[in-house]
């Protein structure tokens, strides 16, 4: 398998083999993070720009540290402190960054397709760090990395995604990735947040949390995206917690070796109970560690040149 993509824009257009290549590559980079010296010179002299038009802490920090561990120079660009506030367009902002010889531009934007748009006119590589409710590819890749590391495989596993599916880019990227690798995906949540349309992708849909979690090997919990909802999609967070929140009692219904995942930030007492978030089946913090390795792998891969795979080895 050879990687020859300049950008990472979404999961939907990746093949199963390409996804596995990222996961394999990430394994090597995870080991780098466990050494005394945690940097490698793979991106030495390169400039990576974090172009975050929408607020984010964990993804930005993860990408920033990933780039630093590859010895790249990193610029952080946030909408609040930028000329976007002064009326500059996204296109002009990106072109200005490229004029500073940026090699990789990592973009988070509230509009679907913003990374694809940039990739059409930039010479730099573009990495999607979340575009609207569309995709968040590196989150899906780190979720799959975590599942594969813990379960040894992805094919044939029952994965339940529980929560706000409608407004979640994490859900979309995960659904694409999981289905491509042969997992069975169940979506669960209030009917207003889990539209039937997702069945056409090949997912099973249920609004009964018991049914959704009983046979699950993985439960991936999603936060309610209040910031994206234009109207109230359910009566109250209290009711959401009692109907769909993962608590001790519901955990008792699951397989004993179920993995509890969450992309963060978690809302304790809403979608997840404190005792569940901190229990030994929760891999939420390992997801954060793996996210760093996966993002190093992605930056390493999109930075690659063209040409033969082996330029006279040894």
């Amino acid at each position: 398998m050879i990687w020859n993509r300049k950008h990472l824009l979404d999961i939907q257009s990746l093949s199963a083999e390409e996804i596995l290549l990222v996961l394999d590559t990430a394994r090597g980079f995870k080991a780098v993070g466990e050494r005394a010296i945690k940097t490698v010179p793979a991106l030495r002299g390169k400039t990576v720009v974090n172009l975050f038009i929408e607020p984010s802490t964990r993804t930005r920090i993860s990408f920033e540290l990933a780039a630093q561990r590859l010895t790249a120079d990193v610029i952080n660009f946030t909408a609040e402190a930028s000329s976007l506030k002064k009326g500059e367009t996204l296109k002009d902002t990106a072109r200005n960054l490229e004029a500073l010889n940026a090699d990789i531009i990592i973009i988070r934007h509230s509009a679907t397709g913003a990374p694809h748009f940039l990739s059409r006119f930039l010479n730099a590589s573009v990495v999607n760090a979340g575009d609207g409710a569309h995709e968040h590819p590196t989150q899906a890749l780190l979720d799959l990395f975590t599942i594969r590391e813990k379960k040894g495989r992805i094919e044939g596993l029952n994965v339940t995604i529980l929560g706000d599916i409608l407004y979640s880019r994490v859900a979309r990227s995960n659904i694409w990735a999981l289905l491509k690798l042969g997992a069975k995906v169940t979506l669960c949540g209030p009917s207003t947040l889990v539209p039937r349309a997702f069945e056409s992708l090949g997912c099973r849909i249920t609004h009964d949390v018991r049914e959704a979690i009983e046979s699950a090997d993985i439960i991936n919990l999603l936060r309610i995206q209040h910031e994206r909802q234009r109207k109230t999609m359910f009566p109250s967070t209290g009711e959401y917690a009692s109907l769909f929140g993962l608590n001790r009692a519901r955990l008792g219904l699951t397989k004993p070796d179920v993995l509890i995942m969450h992309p963060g930030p978690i809302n304790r007492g809403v979608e997840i109970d404190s005792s569940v978030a901190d229990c030994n089946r929760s891999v939420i913090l390992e997801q954060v560690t793996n996210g760093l390795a996966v993002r190093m792998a992605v930056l390493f891969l999109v930075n690659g040149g063209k040409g033969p795979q082996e330029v006279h080895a040894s």
Partner: protein
Amino acid sequence: MAHEIAERNPASANVVLVGIQRGGVHLARRLSTLLKDVWGHDVTVGALDVNMHRDDLNHRVPPQIHPTSIPFDVTEKNVILVDDVLFSGRTTRAAMDALNDFGRPRAIQLAVLVDRGHRELPIKADFVGKNVPTSLQERINVALQEEDGEDAVHLERQ
């Protein structure tokens, strides 16, 4: 080669073998078995992937990353780097850089199964299985039992 390594390294307890992924790792394991017969004690083996330290990452599609596993401290050790083919010397340079991140060895020696010439860097092997003069139009493929089901060195014209 194992006997040459033993002769050159009287302080046998201080020797560790580090194979360069992929072929070098299998060869390092074989050398370890042979050296155990000579020295009468185990010789530790590590595996090193040098791809993150390559100097040609801008000019090629991204290389596949294989696991690096150096489960011991290399500081003050005599590290013997093991590779299947020595050619330009660039892999060896990358390996020495990578090894530096794990500590400061007392010495690094280089053992290769085949030296095919055409060095692009001032690097020379300490232990060579066979010198095979080649032209740049030729390729050397080392097949190993562990990977390919046979032990063979193929010289191919492109």
